[in-house]
Structure formats: C-alpha cells, structure tokens
C-alpha cells in the first residue's frame, strides 16, 4: 500500500469497540475538539451522535463475500459506495472516520481497503483504533470472539473507563490486552480523554512504520491456549529469498488465513537495498518496496503474526527457511 501512497489519499481511521466501551463519547470528543481539521464520519446509529455535522453519513454495515475463491474475503459494500460519494466533495474534509457497530468484526472494514481499487486509489487506511472498557473487558473476552478480534486488529487501543477499576485491575487488563496484541499502542483514558493527535493521522498502516515499534523478541509465551488470540514475532538477520518467502507466505495464508487476523513484515531481500514491506488481513495480502534501509539501521527481516492457533516452532522454521 505504501508504495503507491500519495498526499492526495484521504486518511481513514476505523473506530471500533464493544458496546458500551465509550466509542460514541470518544467520537464526540474528536468532533468537538478544536484541532482545525474536518472529518467526514460514517456511523451506524445516527441518533446516538449528539452532533450536528453535515459530514455525518448514516449507513448500514453491508458485508458481502467477494467471488474470488477466498472464503474469508468479506468486504463492506456500503463503505465502497460512501467513499465514492464523499470523494465528490473531497475539498470539504481532511479525513474520514468510520465507526463500526459494537459487535462488528473489523476484518471486512480492513479488507475493503485492500480489495477495492477505487477505495485504494483515493484513501489510505490510517489506523484501526479500538476502544475497550477497562472494567468489563475480561467478561467480554470470555463471552465473544469479537472482543478479542477488535483488539487483535487494533493499531491504537484506548483503554477507557480506567477510573472504574483499581490500579491492580488496570495492570491485569493491560497485560491481558498485551497477550492478544503486543504491538498496538495503548492509551489509558477515562471518558475518552485521549488527545486527538494520538488517534488520528497515525500512519499505522503506513508500512514504513509498521514494525518500528515491534518490541524485541519475547520468548516467554505463558498463554497459548489454542482459541485465544496471540501475537508472535520473528526476526532473521540473513537476507531472504523473495521467491521462497512468497511461496511460504502464500501457502501459509491459503492454509491458515482464517486464523491469521493480521500479518505484517519488513523484509530484506537478497540483492536489494530497499526494504520490502508486507501485510495481510486474513488471506488478503499486499506488499511493496518502501525505500532503502536507513544508515545505522540493522538490516534484518522481521515478521509479526496476530491470530489464533499460532504454532510458534512451525512458523519460526518456515520463516527461517526463507533465508537466501
């Protein structure tokens, strides 16, 4: 995606979070705060937003499967249409915010930005921001897949309602989030009081920054129950063979794409002085060169998986076998 990014592309922020987590409060803050920027907002419950904004678009989430032989490739038809409509008055706003319903799986929204050519040409997915309720998250994780999926997909997590829990509970819930997604930025908040600058224009899907904040190798994975969402990262110091990587990742996504919620990588291909950036949402993958390795930057290949049923030894062996 980043290879074709230009200034003309409108940044899109996806705002997700379980019912009652505080999404609407956060959205109202974003829209009322004086930040000098105008946002078109796509919502599902028009009435909930107590704001008169002529750029609020009321929609029904219309998810459909692509007829491309890929069983988990679902996209949001309504977003394709709305982005097309908003582009007719492109000069009226600086960015788009899409609020999903509480029970929504974030995959179709994210995949829409990979799959539809018109949407890709005109917009760039800036970040997925997930609002979670510090008090009720443990219960949500216990009773639904969606709560974990929303955290897994997040680039930025607003850990809201921190005023309703004890410091010990807050530590515990943050640790639980880290087990699912150790790569997202977490902002603690109450009543959604996070500065807008920490949420919008993050460039989180900008592959150049994807792995900038990947923490160093963590080897202890205390929790690997198969049904839980976890995240793993691997790095290889030797150069990779592009063909071997493509063959491996292609087969892996085809076989286990339903379990792999997000995959991201920065790769050093043999004989190329540019960094290759790769990312996927389920089976839908995208990649491109993103400029040379910077002076002083360690030339190594790194890959991150967030998903279910991640087999650490097998994934590591597979990645390491891509060495040139």
């Amino acid at each position: 995606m980043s290879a074709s990014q230009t200034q003309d592309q409108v940044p899109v922020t996806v705002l997700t979070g379980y019912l009652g987590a505080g999404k609407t409060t956060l959205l109202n803050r974003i829209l009322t705060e004086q930040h000098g920027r105008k946002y078109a907002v796509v919502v599902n419950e028009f009435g909930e937003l107590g704001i008169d904004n002529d750029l609020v678009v009321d929609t029904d989430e219309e998810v459909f499967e692509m007829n491309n032989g890929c069983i988990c490739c679902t996209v949001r038809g309504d977003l394709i249409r709305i982005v097309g409509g908003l582009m007719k008055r492109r000069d009226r706003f600086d960015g788009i915010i899409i609020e999903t319903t509480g029970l929504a799986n974030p995959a179709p929204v994210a995949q829409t930005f990979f799959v539809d050519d018109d949407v890709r040409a005109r917009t760039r997915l800036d970040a997925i921001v997930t609002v979670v309720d510090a008090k009720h998250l443990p219960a949500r994780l216990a009773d639904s897949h969606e709560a974990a999926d929303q955290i897994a997909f997040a680039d930025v997590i607003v850990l809201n309602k921190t005023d309703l829990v004890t410091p010990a509970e807050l530590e515990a819930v943050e640790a639980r989030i880290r087990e699912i997604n150790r790569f997202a930025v977490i902002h603690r908040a109450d009543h959604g009081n996070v500065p807008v600058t920490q949420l919008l224009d993050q460039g989180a899907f900008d592959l150049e920054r994807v792995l900038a904040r990947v923490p160093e190798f963590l080897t202890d994975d205390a929790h690997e129950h198969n049904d839980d969402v976890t995240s793993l990262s691997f790095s290889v110091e030797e150069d990779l063979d592009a063909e071997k990587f493509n063959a491996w990742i292609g087969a892996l996504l085809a076989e286990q794409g339903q379990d792999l919620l997000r995959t991201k990588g920065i790769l050093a291909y043999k004989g190329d002085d540019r960094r290759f950036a790769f990312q996927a949402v389920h089976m839908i993958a995208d990649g491109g060169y993103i400029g040379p390795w910077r002076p002083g930057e360690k030339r190594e290949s790194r890959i991150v998986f967030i998903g279910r049923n991640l087999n650490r030894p097998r994934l590591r062996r597979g990645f390491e076998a891509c060495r040139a």
Partner: protein
Amino acid sequence: MSAEVLCADHILETRGTSRDLGAHVVACAFAPDGSAGFALGDGTLRIATDGEWTSIAAHDGAVLALAADGRGFVTGGDDGKLRRIAAGEATTLADFGSRWVDQVAATPTHVAAGYGKKVAVLDAAGKTLKTLEHPSTVTGLVFDAKGKRIGASHVNGASLWFVAAKTDNPRKLEWKGSHTAIAISPDGENVVTAMQENALHGWRLTDGQHMRMSGYPSKTRALSFTRSGKFLASSGAESIVLWPFFGGGPMGKAPTELAGGDNALCTYVACHPQHEAVAAGFSDGLVVLADIGSERILPVAGPREAGAVTTLAWRPDGTRLAFGTESGFAAVIDFSKK
C-alpha cells in the same frame, strides 16, 4: 492529414460550449426544453442553455444523482432530499432524512429515487405513489424503455418491479455478489448488472438464462445499450467494450473493442439515441464518438488536465452531447447539421 484532424479538441472548439465549473461533475442530463444540466459535488446544478450557463443551489452537500423528467431536472443529494429543478427554481419533492439519495431515474410520468434499501416512486406532480423495499442498499436504478418497469441492483442480484402494479412483488434476479449498476435492453428482455469483481452479469428474462461477461481490468460504472439493442456498451477497460446481444450472444462471443490503445481506462459510455454509435469518456479526459458499424472513431475533446470523464449524456433528439469530468470541466457539443 490536416492540422484540424490532429487536434483532438477540434470538435469541442468548433461545435462546443464549455466551462470549468470547479467541482466534481457527478452527472449530466438534458431537460425537455433542450438545456443541459450538470450536477456537481458542491451541491449546485449548472445549466447550459444555448451557450448561456446558470447556477442553482440544489442540495446542502453534494448532488449525488440527476435525471430529467417531463418537467425539468430531478436531483438527489447527500442531504437526504429529492428535488426538482425547473424554470430556474428548485423545489423539494421528498425528504428522506439522514439517508443519501444517490439513485434517481425518471420518465416523463414518473420519478424513482433510491435512498438506502428503499426506492420511492413518485408521479409527475411529486406525490409518492409507493415505496419499494430491497434486501440491501440500491446501487443502480433504471426504468425500462417503455417506463413500465423499474430495475434496481443490490447485493446478490437485482429486483424488477412493475410501476403500475397493485401488489408489489418484484421479480427477483439472483446472482451471488455485489451488483453496482444496472441496464435494461430496449426490448425489455435482458437485464445486465455490473459487479464488484470486474465483470457483468445478465439475465435473459424470457427463459431465465444467465449471462456472464468478464475480462475487465477495473469495475464497470457505465452500461448503455445501443438503440437497436444489438450491443451493450460498457466502461471499465482500456477501450469501449461492446457485447453482442444477437446471434446467440453475448454467450460464447467475444466483445467488440473500440478506441483502445491509449493506456487510459474508459470511464463512461453513452449510446446515441438514434444511431448505432457510442460516445465514450476516458480516464485522461478524452471524449470520442465511435461509429459501431464502421468502427470509425471521431475525437470530440481532450485529453486534458481536468481528470477522468465521469458522465456523458445525449439529448433525446441526438443532436447534443454533454460531458463532465472529475475536476469540473463540462461541455455541450452540437452535432446538428450546420
């Protein structure tokens, strides 16, 4: 070869009137009085009458759809309103609240407006006759040539309704996937939709035969049958793609491709209302007129900086062609004998 032939803007310069309107041209159409209307992303409708250009505020937001009915222009906007613009004045026909009115179709006697999953059918006076419900948002709306039926595209197919029916049960045309535009052949026997997967899907109504037309490098936005119904012109490829609807086609037949070779995508097509000819616009701003029988191409305008051609329309008598582009260039060309 003369210098005139080399200049792609020759027809525009000698037979056209044009303006830079400064906003995305969403659609254009001709009113019964012969004037051309251009619906813009800034909420205005610009009207060109014999070289005079006027502007009318139509919607608070963007105009999303435009059609001509028996009295003037009908527009839909992202302010949820359906309006009629006639004799220099805009009146509200209906207000659908927070939903975008992004589909409008009209005949001299009826207006149909799509907002979300619903389509409102109004009579010429603006009275709502009925509201048609669909399983998902309506993405394309068209009357058949006689104005008796309405076709609406949506997810998993299209619905075909009789305008005058007492009980409203549509004929459901089903095919899995997202359908994003619709056309009905002049004889009323074929319905074709454009799909998300860069392909067209068709239904022959007489026997329910499915038709699949694929091979496009991008999505098709515009579908237009020639007057005879022998060809279906479509955008979405680097040429005008014409599918034959005769001799057993389009099944098993290759389409005719015209005006290709410039590495620009065809972004809009509109067939001539009388002759077997099609006007086409491209992503580089080029507009051509193609004669289907002889495969001759007449350059009309461009390419130009003003971006992709977003709309084309013929006056019903076939003497004028209007077009507009992404960044607001608009023109009316006079093809009448001089």
